[in-house]
């Protein structure tokens, strides 16, 4: 399982890192062959203004995936800090932090995205930040859960009795034991975030043109669904593939790390 997931992840990473270099054409290069089906020149055909679909998928994937990875990485960082602190310290700190996060949690993603974009402008940076903020509460929860349980384990109390400071205990004795469940959950959240990113771009809240991304490609292609189905199927399959990668990875990791048992 893990290996399948890793192989799929490798494909995605390839796109992210080498995107423009492996695309056969420049994604913005137009040509008179609009809405063509697959051919020797264009493996997946072309879009409405003759741009090569495969290239747009590859470069668009780079954009979409980068946004996803960066946003989730930010959410993970914030979630780790908040979840670990909140879970480990408990009491009032836990209460306050969780309530504050609940406020964010209560906001529908799109409303928040629209609000931010309206207020600060539709830039790439804003999109990433919005997604990061929206997913931070979920991440914090994912961290906090295992922390609440691990902090009661014997080796933690043993460390305390030895005289290890609370901060060191949290980092050295608690954190390493919660990494496994966090990794699995992060993978699942990545699967989810792909959809959020593409949905937001679909609605036009994503990075502005001409940078391609799967969401906006889907939006553009809607009108041409019957004429050139690949223009819709292409991005759709790409989105599903990416999401599936993380789900497969999550399942593989779960088996591998034997999450839930010590």
């Amino acid at each position, binding site marked *: 399982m893990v290996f399948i997931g890793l192989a799929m992840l490798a494909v995605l990473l390839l796109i992210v890192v080498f995107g423009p270099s492996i695309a056969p054409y420049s994604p913005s290069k137009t040509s008179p062959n609009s809405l063509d089906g697959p051919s020797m020149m264009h493996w997946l055909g072309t879009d409405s203004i003759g741009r090569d679909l495969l290239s747009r998928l590859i470069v668009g994937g780079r954009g979409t995936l980068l946004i996803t990875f960066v946003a989730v990485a930010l959410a993970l960082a914030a979630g780790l800090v908040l979840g670990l602190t909140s879970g480990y310290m408990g009491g009032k700190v836990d209460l306050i932090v969780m309530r504050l996060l609940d406020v964010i949690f209560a906001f529908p993603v799109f409303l928040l995205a629209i609000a931010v974009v309206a207020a600060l402008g539709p830039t790439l940076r804003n999109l990433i930040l919005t997604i990061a903020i929206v997913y931070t509460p979920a991440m914090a929860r994912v961290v906090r859960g295992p922390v609440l349980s691990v902090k009661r384990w014997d080796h933690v*109390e*043993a460390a305390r*009795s*030895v005289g290890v400071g*609370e901060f060191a205990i949290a980092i050295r004795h608690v954190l*390493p034991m919660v990494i496994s469940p966090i990794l699995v959950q992060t993978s699942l959240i990545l699967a989810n975030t792909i959809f959020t990113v593409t949905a937001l771009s679909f609605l036009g809240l994503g990075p502005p043109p001409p940078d391609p991304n799967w969401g906006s490609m889907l939006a553009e292609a809607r009108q041409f669904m019957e004429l050139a189905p690949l223009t819709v199927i292409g991005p759709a399959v790409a989105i599903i593939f990416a999401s599936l990668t993380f789900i497969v990875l999550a399942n593989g990791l779960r088996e591998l790390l034997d999450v839930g048992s*010590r």
Partner: protein
Amino acid sequence: MTTPLLQVRDLSVVFPPRRGRPPVKAVDRVSFDIEPGHTVGLVGESGSGKTTTGRAILQLQPITGGSVSLLGRELTGMSRSEVRAMRRHMQFVLQNPYSSLHPRMKVADILAEPLKVHRSVAKAEIPDRVAELMRLVNMDPAVVKRYPHEFSGGQRQRIVIARALAVNPDFVVCDEPVSALDVRTQAQIVELLHDLQSKLKLSYLFIAHDLAIVRAVAHRVAVMYGGRIVELGDADDVYENPVHPYTKNLLEAVPIPDPVRQRAKLASAAPDPNFRGRDAETGPCVFGEDHAHTGTPEWHEVGPGHGVSCRFWPPGVSPIRS
């Protein structure tokens, strides 16, 4: 007369009420001393408060009242960093050798951690000290590169003991240190603890439910019931001349690994004493003293260094005056 290493006075721990349950007096005015180089055994059944007492003394459990004084210094009022500094004098050996070692740390790092925390040894000398600790517990120093799961239960417990000894503590609380081990391993670990005590002049608070094992290590024994110490004295006195009915009940219940005697014991009718029967705290106690009136603690000396509580005596039972 040496100053006791550890002095516990009127230690109390009350668990707050939760979800419809009333507050629980887990530890109720417990007092005892431990002399340097001596072991006090703390025995009792589940719910007696013995584990909570041990953790409270180590300041791992918040205390509701009373005092704990180690090496003449009062622990209960100390700030967190002061307590942490004092931890180099008091260490903890927990019950479960399978969970008290960090599963992802090598043994070498586990043993080095206390040394680094308390800066008791120069960094360059840590590996030597780690090797020394392993030899102290009769283990081969070469195996420190391994992880805890590569060792048996008995070996893991030795590692736990080695960690406890790392910073040369004066006092170690052992909470059921051998209950999770097989009988032969138990005997080995008990012997190890015994040897280490004479070698290093350690004091132990040995908490256990197995009275036979406690006898092997304890100089003095405290019997706990319902959060209180009901009897306290030299091991020989408590085991051979118990005064409190609960102590007698407890000793009587211990199975004897001798078929003839054990059969006879089981054949005799077991009383089902009601230790909470005489719960009223008013009026004279079984020794004839009205404590509510005189304001004295509910404790009576029945022999030199041998005392008993007048609480938890079943109705109708009174001490036989010798």
